[in-house]
């Protein structure tokens, strides 16, 4: 590993920069990629590095999740992995269309009102035609009014049937889209449950080692109650780390002692 901070370059499995003012987060970022003024040449960090690649006194840690990653870094698998992969593929294949948003009811309500009005008008005009005919008058104009109203009624009725059909179609499409979303949610829930089981399985495989690691750091009692920095060091010791761990905490006399205990490259600040 080669670490450069400003114009200082240090090499080896355990390096210390406690004599140089440098931000721990910047060094950790340099391990992962690039950072201003700091460069670290080292193997690529794995997922467990995201959890315990930087150990500081004020850090937070989801210990079980980190420990499961540590188990994976050693090549341990969980019996649930295969099923999770299968379900993930099925999940990727589900592409739910957008459920139609607002379904316009207004058109339909307007058209229904128009139909009622026109029916009344047709009935009135039919009455007018009959009255004129009974009185022996000329019903020609009244009859053509009736025909016009009847034609309009039939047009609006056709339009209303079409609007009704559109509404039904959109409802059907929305329901189908929601069915897909529901299937997706069920798949996601199953995957989350399996991943929880996998995590528990992985944690079990390294529990004893982790417990003795945090005990060596001075923590008594339930190893999962250890403070975040202590737990992170325990996880790092259990994990198989190729990229360096950045230490910004006083637990080891020097970088070499830390690297030996962690069995990993160390940059001590």
């Amino acid at each position, binding site marked *: 590993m080669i670490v450069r901070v400003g114009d200082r370059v240090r090499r080896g499995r355990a390096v210390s920069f406690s004599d140089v003012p440098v931000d721990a987060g910047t060094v950790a970022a340099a391990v992962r990629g690039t950072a201003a003024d700091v460069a670290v040449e080292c193997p690529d960090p794995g997922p467990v590095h995201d959890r315990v690649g930087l150990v500081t006194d004020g850090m937070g840690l989801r210990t079980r999740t980190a420990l499961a990653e540590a188990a994976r870094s050693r090549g341990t698998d969980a019996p649930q992995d295969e099923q999770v992969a299968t379900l993930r593929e099925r999940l990727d294949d589900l592409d739910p269309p957008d459920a139609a*948003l607002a379904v316009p009811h207004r058109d339909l309500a307007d058209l229904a009102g128009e139909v009622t009005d026109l029916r009344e008008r047709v009935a009135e005009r039919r009455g007018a035609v009959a009255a004129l005919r009974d009185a022996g008058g000329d019903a020609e104009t009244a009859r053509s009014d009736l025909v016009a109203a009847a034609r309009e009624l039939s047009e609006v009725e056709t339009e209303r049937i079409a609007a009704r059909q559109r509404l039904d179609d959109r409802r059907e499409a929305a329901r189908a889209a929601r069915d897909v*979303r529901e299937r997706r949610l069920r798949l996601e829930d199953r995957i989350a449950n399996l991943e929880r089981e996998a995590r528990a399985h992985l944690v079990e495989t390294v529990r004893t080692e982790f417990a003795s690691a945090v005990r060596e750091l001075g923590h008594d009692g339930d190893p999962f109650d250890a403070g975040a920095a202590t737990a992170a060091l325990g996880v790092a010791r259990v994990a198989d780390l190729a990229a360096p761990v950045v230490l910004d905490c006083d637990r080891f006399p020097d970088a070499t002692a830390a690297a030996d205990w962690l069995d990993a490259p160390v940059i001590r600040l």
Partner: protein
Amino acid sequence: MLLVVAYSRVARRTLRNACRAHEGTVVRRFGRAALLADTEFGAFQALRLRERHGSDVQIERTRPLNPYSAVPAPVREAAAAYESEAHPNTPYERFAAGTDHPSAERMKAREL
């Protein structure tokens, strides 16, 4: 009332949080659905969820059912008779055949 249904894990979480934060607006909570009060604030909460999660949130408006004004008497009577008189394993169609009770098909074709 407003029925809000969540269709994703994040939408379900937001709905749960919204329900917890605004108990007065929640009429009832189900697993990933909730009935919100028919108030502007209920609508505000529902629309906020929809704004954040799009199609993963379904909003429907429900209203209380008064069977005496909304449901025709023959349907009410058929329901009461089927439950009290029919043998537990008798399908409704068989029960209704030869009686004055409306057929299932007929009821399906008529909206309330």
